[in-house]
């Protein structure tokens, strides 16, 4: 599929007319009888769920009749069909409430992406060489079934592993149940920006292994410790809507929002007060505030005077913030992002929970609450398959080769796996290593469901049918898994329903098992402060390295969507590129000017990117957005910018084993002058960049 095709599908009738006038190339293709009965030119809106993050926002898709190049019965051709043209938030949905973030808006590009895989592929060359040949679904399923039969025959079912994103919902439940009945271990999950440590701390403090829903709308004082809750953290759309209501509240004192961080994020820029705090000490500030709010006579190590020295926040400010927190109820504290990615992350999560308890924020208006959730499928961490390679690995929508430090050597570990199947819709760094790629339908073509853990005060599980018929010879991954389970020599017992649709219909509660409410308040296990551990000596590597979730590309899984590539970052206006944020004064001191090429070096390696001078970052920190630097991720994402994840040290959060991505120190050096092609900012430097290999200059 070329770019012309993509434009044609997203454009409306005018474009169709233009192409027709030029001598319709589709006429060379056969034309299928339409399967839908649609009135041309009349739009209908159909509900679905955005798949791009775990928030599970309900969306509505505008569907109109259009012409599309499709595959039917393995044959390419043209058909008139209902095509999703635009996504908006679903006004009936408790999470999105009719709103949608920029990433959600761009989700429509997944379906029409010119590099989307349109049929099953089998590796034909060296592993990782990117050589694939087309095969039929029958051949593909037979091959996968054969591999699983081999494992079963050797009584080695435990050598099957499934790698997915840690999303709550029936899809992962189905995978877990299939694995269990086959005799394999629980699915392995991986996500770069993981909130697992907060979930675990919440489980210990509040009895709920999940993220809390924050009633921002009714809060009078909000303090966020690093949580980019208006941009990328947790349920950003729901939180933005609630925050908007908080800000637009009528009479009475204006609620106050304080943000604590080492870098001015988009969320921080919305705050009434920004408190710069040394990385890895945020929890101390929360503990000191809690002690003052509780009127604790002897706060010990958390006395403001002691905390001030470590956090860099003056005593008077700590005391004032604590007084404001205590006096302006309902007050609530949030934690997310960098504080939860230090080696002492559990302390920060515990400290913020302690502060919330001091403010009596639990289950109160303007405070925290936990949505009743069903038990979720047990999962295993990525480390387990890195340490002991499985014999058959199934990978669903996760790209750990890109989103893990080079020192984890994920690619090497995957190369040791004899047989890998990816269900990805695109070739990325991980699926390039697969032996078989069995492309999933896009979410608009599939049955979708979500049981959001947060974002709404009440449980808001939802499931919807396909918005449109599939364009290509793809198949819904849960359906493929069910088909494989039926085809095994020793069929799985008890048998599953035939399709994911039937599986969804079978369970009354989309989160699987019976709902359970958080019960009582078990005593919170105190976590003592330990000094954050950083990789790299401070004298040799003087800067804290702060990778952060890109507003557009998130953890890099969206770098293939051109709308998000071309969308300027809200704080720097950077687009289509990577950059290194350096404190403005520090940069002048170092002789680094805007756009200069800078080398950022950790003990693990180095990356080069243009400098962006930022007055809103600590002088001893440098930050880089995550998302760029793909080596193999469609024409829009490949070889653009650099990947800061690659140079992260393999430090982990002790309690969860998740990556401590804030625990790396770096040094920086200017290695060259400004290069107009490397730092692309909106306005002034904006221009066309016709540098992808095809798809430009051959249309219109």
């Amino acid at each position: 599929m070329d770019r012309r095709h993509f434009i044609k599908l997203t454009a409306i009738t005018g474009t169709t007319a233009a192409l027709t006038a030029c001598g319709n190339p589709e006429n060379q293709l056969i034309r299928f009888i339409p399967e839908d009965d649609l009135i041309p030119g009349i739009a209908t809106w159909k509900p679905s769920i955005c798949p791009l993050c775990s928030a599970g926002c309900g969306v509505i898709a505008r569907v109109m009749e259009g012409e599309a190049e499709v595959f039917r019965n393995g044959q390419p051709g043209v058909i008139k069909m209902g095509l999703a043209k635009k996504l908006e938030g679903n006004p009936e949905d408790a999470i999105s409430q009719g709103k949608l973030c920029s990433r959600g808006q761009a989700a429509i590009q997944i379906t029409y992406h010119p590099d989307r895989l349109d049929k099953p592929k089998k590796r034909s060359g060296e592993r990782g060489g990117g050589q694939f040949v087309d095969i039929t679904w029958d051949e593909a399923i037979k091959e996968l079934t054969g591999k699983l039969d081999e494992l079963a025959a050797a009584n080695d079912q435990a050598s099957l592993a499934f790698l997915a994103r840690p999303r709550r919902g029936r899809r992962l439940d189905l995978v877990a149940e299939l694995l269990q009945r086959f005799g394999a271990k629980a699915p392995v999950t991986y996500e770069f920006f993981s909130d697992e440590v907060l979930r675990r701390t919440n489980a210990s403090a509040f009895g709920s292994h999940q993220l809390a829903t924050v009633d921002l709308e009714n809060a009078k004082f909000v303090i966020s410790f690093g949580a980019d809750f208006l941009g990328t953290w947790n349920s950003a759309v729901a939180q933005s809507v609630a925050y908007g209501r908080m800000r637009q509240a009528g009479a009475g004192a204006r609620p106050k929002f304080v943000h604590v961080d080492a870098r001015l994020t988009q969320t921080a820029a919305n705050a009434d007060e920004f408190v710069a705090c040394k990385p890895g000490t945020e929890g101390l500030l929360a503990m000191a505030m809690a002690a003052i709010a509780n009127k604790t006579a002897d706060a010990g190590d958390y006395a403001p005077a002691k905390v001030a020295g470590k956090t860099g926040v003056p005593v008077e400010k700590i005391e004032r913030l604590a007084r404001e927190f205590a006096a302006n109820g309902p007050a609530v504290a949030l934690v997310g992002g960098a504080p939860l990615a230090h080696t002492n992350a559990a302390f920060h999560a515990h400290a913020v929970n302690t502060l919330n308890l001091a403010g009596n924020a639990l289950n109160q208006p303007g405070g925290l609450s936990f949505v009743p959730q069903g038990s979720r499928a047990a999962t295993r961490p990525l480390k387990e398959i890195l340490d002991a390679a499985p014999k058959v690995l199934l990978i669903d929508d996760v790209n750990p080769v890109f989103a893990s430090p080079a020192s984890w050597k994920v690619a090497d570990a995957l190369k040791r796996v004899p047989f890998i199947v990816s269900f990805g819709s695109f070739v990325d760094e991980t699926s390039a290593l697969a032996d078989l790629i069995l492309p999933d339908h896009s979410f608009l073509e599939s049955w979708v469901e979500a049981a959001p853990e947060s974002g709404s005060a009440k449980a808001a599980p939802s499931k919807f049918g396909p918005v449109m018929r599939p364009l290509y010879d793809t198949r819904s991954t849960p359906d493929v898994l069910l088909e494989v389970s039926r085809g095994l020599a020793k069929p799985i017992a008890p048998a599953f329903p035939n399709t994911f649709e039937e599986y969804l219909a079978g369970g009354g509660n989309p989160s699987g098992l019976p709902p359970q409410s958080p019960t009582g308040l078990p005593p919170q296990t105190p976590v003592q402060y330990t000094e954050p551990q950083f990789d790299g000596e401070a004298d040799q590597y003087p800067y804290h390295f702060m990778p952060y979730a890109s507003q557009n590309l998130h953890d890099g899984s969206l770098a293939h969507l051109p709308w998000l590539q071309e969308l300027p970052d809200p704080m720097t206006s950077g687009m289509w590129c990577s950059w290194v944020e350096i404190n403005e004064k520090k940069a002048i001191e170092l002789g680094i000017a805007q756009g200069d090429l800078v080398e950022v070096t950790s003990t693990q390696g180095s990356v080069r990117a243009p400098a962006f001078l930022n007055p809103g970052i600590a002088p001893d920190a440098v930050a880089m957005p995550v998302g760029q630097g793909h080596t193999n991720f469609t024409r829009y994402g490949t070889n653009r910018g650099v990947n800061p994840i690659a140079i992260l040290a393999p430090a982990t959060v002790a309690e969860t084993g998740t990556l401590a991505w804030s625990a790396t120190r770096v040094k920086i050096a200017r290695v060259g002058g400004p290069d107009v092609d490397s730092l692309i900012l909106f306005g002034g430097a904006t221009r066309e960049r016709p540098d992808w290999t095809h798809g430009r200059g051959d249309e219109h």
Partner: protein
Amino acid sequence: MAERSRWGTSAVFTPAHASAGDAIKAFFDSRPDTVAQPFDFSHQIHLSKGAVCTDCHTGVEQGPRAGIPNVNTCMICHSQIAIDRPLIKQLTEMQEKGLDLAWNRVYDYQPQAHVRFNHAPHIRAKVECSTCHGNQAEQTVARRAVNMNMAFCVNCHKEKQASNDCLTCHY
């Protein structure tokens, strides 16, 4: 599609026409009246047997576009009527294979005119189909019997006291 002209263009400038010749033809609205169709359909026969336009061109009363019938629409009648004719046999065979006819557009506007036409309000205003599409009872495959230039639209709008505001059609 014709190769795009590189004359006087850059990578960022997209010319509306493939060549200067095409631009001149478009300017004088010089187009053939007949459009090759994949199937020897006769409007004349169908209308003479009592069919009406909306039997096949569904949606014209509800939406902006008149539907172009697919093979299934043909077979509503032709599964019973004239099933022994070679052309109808061809249709039956196509339906069995799930294949449709690739009709070519007869009427359209130059995209650069930015004209949007909506059938439904015209039908509601009781404008006859033949006003814009000519007398189909005299045509086999449809041909461009009426030159739908701006004067044609504006005159009719004037006559029927419909809006002649630019934004009525150009948006």
